[in-house]
C-alpha cells in the first residue's frame, strides 16, 4: 500500500484513473454506441454500470476517491428522458448539492463531473471522455486524496 502511494505520486508513471457511473439506459447505451460506432476515447475511464443515475449515492464518489480515482463522472439520461421517469431529476439535485459540499470542504470540485448522455449520443460520449481525460491530465493526480491513503491523525 505504501508502495502504491508512492507510485501514484510519481508523475512520470502516473496514468489518470476516472471512475464513471453510468445509467444503464442512456449513458451506458451511449458509451456502448460509441464503441459500436468506433468512436475512440481514452481508456482512463472505468465504467460502473448502474440502473439509473438516481442510484448514485454521493458516497460512491468519496469511495472512488478513497480508492484512487482522480476524477469521478456520473452520467445519466437527459432531463425528461429518464427511463425511470425521474431518477435523473433526483440525481441532479443530490449530486449538484454534493459538489457544493465538496467545494466547501476544499475537495476539488473539478474532480467530479456530471453529464447527461443519451443512448443516441455515442459521439458526445466519446468527446466528453476525451475532454475530461484531458482535464484530469492537466490537473494531475488527486494528491490531496492520494496522500490520505497513508493514514490519518496519529500516523
Amino acid at each position, binding site marked *: *500500500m505504501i508502495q*502504491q502511494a508512492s507510485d501514484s505520486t510519481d508523475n512520470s508513471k502516473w496514468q489518470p484513473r476516472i471512475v464513471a457511473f453510468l445509467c444503464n439506459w442512456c449513458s451506458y447505451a451511449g458509451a456502448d454506441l460509441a464503441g459500436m460506432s468506433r468512436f475512440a476515447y481514452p481508456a482512463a475511464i472505468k465504467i460502473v454500470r448502474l440502473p439509473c443515475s438516481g442510484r448514485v449515492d454521493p458516497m460512491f464518489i468519496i469511495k472512488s476517491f478513497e*480508492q484512487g480515482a482522480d476524477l469521478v463522472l456520473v452520467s445519466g439520461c437527459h432531463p425528461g428522458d429518464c427511463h425511470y421517469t425521474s431518477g435523473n431529476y433526483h440525481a441532479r439535485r443530490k449530486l449538484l448539492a454534493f459538489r457544493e459540499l465538496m467545494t466547501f470542504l476544499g475537495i476539488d470540485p473539478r474532480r467530479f463531473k456530471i453529464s447527461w448522455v443519451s443512448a443516441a449520443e455515442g459521439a458526445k460520449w466519446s468527446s466528453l471522455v476525451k475532454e475530461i481525460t484531458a482535464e484530469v491530465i492537466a490537473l494531475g493526480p488527486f494528491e490531496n486524496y492520494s496522500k490520505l491513503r497513508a*493514514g*490519518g*491523525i*496519529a*500516523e
Partner: protein
Amino acid sequence: MNSAKVDEQTLYQAATGWLKSAVDILLGAGVEVIAPIETDPGVVELAAVNSSEAVALDYVNARLPLKRLLFPVTEVLLEYEKQSDGDVDVKSEPAASPKDVVVIGARPCDVAALEALDKVFHWDYDDVHYSGRREGTTLITFACTKPGPQCFCTSVGGSPHNSAQSDVLVFLEDDGRALLQVCSDKGAKFVDQLGDVAKPAPAGSKLPAPPEVKARFEPEKVKQWLDESFEDDFWADVSLKCLGCGACSYLCPTCHCFDIVDEANWHSGQRRRNWDCCSHPMFTKHASGHNPRPDQASRCRQRVMHKFKYFPERFGQIACVGCGRCTRACCVGQNLVSILTDIETRAKGGANCDA
C-alpha cells in the same frame, strides 16, 4: 515501563529558562518533544513542539488525555497485500520502531492514569504496540497549580501533586524557575541531560503545598453500593438524559476500550485498532442482533461499574483519576461526581438526591 523506583526522591532546582534549555537539548538529541500547546484559543493539546516557545504553562489540562500518545485513536496493527502469485504478504510488526519521546507538561492525573493502561495492555498479553511506545516515553509532569472546577482527583486517591507514573514532577515557580522532583531513572536521566540548568535543590527545600481539591466521595463506599446494586432502578434514572454520545469515554484518560477493524480493498489492507466506547449501542451488539446491554441504563451502569468496581476488583485500583473531563465534555450536563456522591449517599442509606 516505569516500574523502577528511585530509593529516594531527589529534588532539583531548575533555573529560569530551564524549559527552553530542556527542549533545545532534547531536540538536539533527536528526541521527540511533546508539550502542551495552545491549538485554538483556550484549547490546549499535547503535541510535538519544535521549540519551547509554544509551550503553554497556564492551563488546567489538555483537551485530549495523555493516553492518546501511547494508545492512539487509531493505529495499524498489521498490513497485508495480495501478491501477483496469489499469496498474501502480511506485515505484523509495528510500522516503525518508535522514537524516544519526552512528554513535558502533562498533568499528574493524566500521568497517573497510565497505571491503569499499563495494567490493561500488559496484563494477560503484552501489547507490543503500546509497550514499545511506553518504554520510549519519559514523562516530565507539571504539578497542578490551578485545578479546574470539575477536578476531583483527591476523591479517587490522587492529588494535584501526585507523582505516580511520572519520571519527573515539576513544580513551576512564578519567576520561571522550577523545582524538579525526580521520580525514576528516566527522570534522573532527564535531569542529567539538563546539565547545569538543574542543580540539586538545597537541602530542606520544601515542595509547595498542593492546591486544594475537595474530596467529594469515598470510592470504597461507592464500591460497596455498586457491589449489590447491579439491578437498581438508579441506573435507569441516572441515564435518562444520557444520549450515549461517547465524549466522556473518548476524553477519559483511563478508558481504553478499542475496536479492531480491517480496512481493505481487493488486494491490500490494514488491520487497525480504534478507540471504542461502551456508551455506544453497537459496542456490545452481537452479530446475531442480540445486545446484552440493550439500553443506555445498562451502558451507563457499565461505565461506572467498570471504573469503580470491576477494574478495582481485577487490578486493585480505580479506573478514574478525577480529571473531570467527562463532566466538562457532557453536553447534557451528566456529572460523574454527582452520580458518585449520589451512590455514596445510597451506600450510606441516604435518600435519593439529584443525580
